């Protein structure tokens, strides 16, 4: 067993208490930690909370069926890698094929012999080859001195030793599980599951190709070149952090401007948070999420070049004032254009008031000219604006705000999939509140 996998954790979703108890005892006797959900909803909550190594799933459940639970596990990027074994009294070939086509790794018909269950559990666990990355604490705040640090998390001991030998002259090797150390580089196997644990603040991750396999766009080969490639990757990552730090300074300025007005204080942060949530729901990668976050925070920075009284005006605008206000995206773009590393943000800053049907401003762009990142920020901005009380209307409920946006979709202004992602997030939040989770 890999050193990082201390104990195999299993979630059993089974409504029959006697069956669940037998399963729990049997698995615990074989060194596994077991959590039991009695309904599909309970099971899903446990799976999302514990991220177990394996799920044993009954087909017949009181609130839904096991197929639906399996589909939800497999359609959520955070849980899709967890293997599922169905346990069911339904033994028709179509039931088995249906279960397996939902993404399950195996299908076991009740009644089953305990030895067969354990054999299949072991087989699925070994086939899943899920090597978890170490759970890293956030990088230490202390200033860096000396060599960059690396954790080598390769499953095979001899490959791990070789990598440490190659990297040793340039990097400080940190043992797996060391607490409180800032980590610059993480070396993992090509199939390791580390993406969900690494935020933008995390270390550089290098994936090593299997023995004998050539390098690919996503992997490097374990040879003497590894130290040079690793060094370059860490430097590039650091450069990215420096650009982020510069962006942070601009964001601080924009926030300071916004915070002078009580009615809008914190609005940009809510827009950014909402936009990132939508981006995640659409499956966009972490780099794109970061672009969207920073773009959302800086989207109205052009307001700093407009008269203060105009920006803070809450009354009805005259046509001249409206024309002036509608200059803020272009002014924002002008302001940021001088800072070339932030070029990727410019479409968001310039076009977040454009509509797919061409009725927006400042350029009257139409759908094919408006990138997805811009559409996401536009929807998040409109939603959060509706949630704030204005002089001419009270703050809207989440449901009412979503309905207003859906009407904009029907008119052809906003992107339907983006609003659907927002609505799904709002619904999930409401369900969470309703169940107290």
């Amino acid at each position, binding site marked *: 067993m890999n050193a990082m996998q201390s104990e195999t954790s299993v979630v059993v979703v089974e409504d029959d208490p006697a069956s669940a108890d037998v399963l729990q005892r049997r698995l615990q006797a074989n060194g596994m930690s077991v959590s039991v959900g009695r309904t599909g909803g309970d099971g899903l909550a446990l799976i999302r909370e514990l991220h177990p190594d394996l799920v044993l799933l009954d087909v017949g459940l009181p609130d839904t069926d096991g197929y639906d639970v399996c589909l939800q596990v497999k359609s959520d990027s955070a849980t899709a890698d967890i293997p599922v074994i169905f346990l069911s009294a339904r033994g028709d070939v179509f039931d088995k094929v249906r279960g397996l086509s939902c993404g399950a790794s195996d299908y076991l018909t009740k009644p089953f012999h305990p030895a067969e269950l354990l054999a299949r559990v072991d087989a699925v666990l070994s086939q899943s080859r899920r090597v978890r990355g170490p759970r890293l604490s956030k990088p230490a705040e202390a200033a860096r001195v000396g060599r960059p640090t690396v954790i080598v998390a390769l499953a095979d001991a001899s490959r791990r030793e070789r990598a440490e030998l190659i990297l040793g002259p340039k990097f400080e090797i940190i043992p797996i599980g060391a607490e409180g150390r800032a980590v610059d580089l993480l070396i993992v196997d090509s199939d390791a599951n580390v993406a969900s644990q690494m935020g933008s603040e995390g270390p550089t991750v290098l994936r090593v190709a299997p023995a004998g396999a050539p390098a690919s766009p996503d992997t490097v080969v374990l040879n003497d070149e590894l130290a040079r490639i690793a060094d370059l990757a860490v430097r590039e990552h650091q450069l990215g952090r420096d650009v982020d730090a510069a962006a942070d300074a601009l964001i601080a300025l924009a926030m300071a401007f916004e915070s002078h007005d009580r009615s809008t204080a914190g609005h940009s942060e809510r827009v950014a948070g909402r936009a990132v949530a939508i981006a995640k729901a659409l499956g966009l990668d972490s780099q794109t999420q970061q672009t969207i976050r920073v773009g959302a925070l800086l989207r109205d920075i052009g307001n700093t070049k407009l008269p203060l009284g105009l920006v803070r005006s809450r009354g009805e605008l005259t046509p001249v004032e409206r024309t002036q206000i509608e200059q803020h995206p272009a002014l924002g773009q002008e302001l940021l254009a001088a800072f070339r590393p932030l070029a990727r943000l410019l479409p968001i800053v310039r076009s977040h008031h454009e509509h797919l049907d061409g009725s927006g401003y400042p350029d009257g762009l139409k759908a094919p000219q408006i990138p997805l990142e811009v559409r996401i920020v536009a929807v998040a901005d409109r939603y959060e604006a509706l949630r704030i009380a204005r002089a001419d209307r009270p703050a809207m409920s989440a449901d009412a705000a979503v309905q207003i946006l859906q009407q904009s979709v029907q008119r052809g202004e906003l992107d339907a999939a*983006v609003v659907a992602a927002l609505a799904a997030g709002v619904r999930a939040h409401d369900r969470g509140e309703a169940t107290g989770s």
Partner: protein
Amino acid sequence: MTSDMQTDRLAQPESVPRHEDRFIASEELARLVMRTAGSHLQLAQDDRPYQWSTTAYCDTYDWAIYRAAEAGQALRLRFREYHRTRPDEAFTSARLWLELKEDTIDMSRKERFEISGDAVPAFLRGETTLSDGRSGLGKKAAELVQAGARPVVVTQYNRLAYAAPGDRIRITADHNLIYLAVPWTTNADDSVPIRIGPILARETDVVIEMKWVGELPNWAEELHGYLRERAPADRPSKFVVAMRHLLGEAKKS
């Protein structure tokens, strides 16, 4: 500008006027119906049991196809592909089907063209001409493409299908039906494959469809009556249900 190469890659269409009824049934009722169908019909060759069908439906920016479908008459433009396990992307296949399906009040007809996933953007840019067959649907599809039709919703399901030779009767049961949105932004070549989602809704029951040409045989007539008594028969199409969810009009369902 049309592309001869693209045109050459499209198979000749088949156009058949058909009747179609759709029911929403419990798992138990669906099992009973499919057992009956299985004793009279053969398992359909092109629908491997429980493979995943992924269908991307197109609409224009003013939702003209959906509005027409709600009124009971529309030409639907959709891309269908098949996978052994559920994909989270669309247009991944080297071989998928571009389907044109026209519904009128009491009849529907369909044409199917073979196309590769990476040829979809060129088709949506209007660079591919469909051979028009007997129905004239290809010309109507070109008008929709000209109006900006692009993929907007996706359905995924496991289909079990029984059919008579020549598809004179076809009875299908769709399990695990999921409706998803698709964030299509551009017809550039690199827009495919595209990740699908978010999930708009799931169907917990089974959608049974009976499609036939001409008269139904006695056993099928009885089965049709049995279904009409026990399952809601005014079920809208998957496209309409998906679009209602997408546009926030699901309370109509």
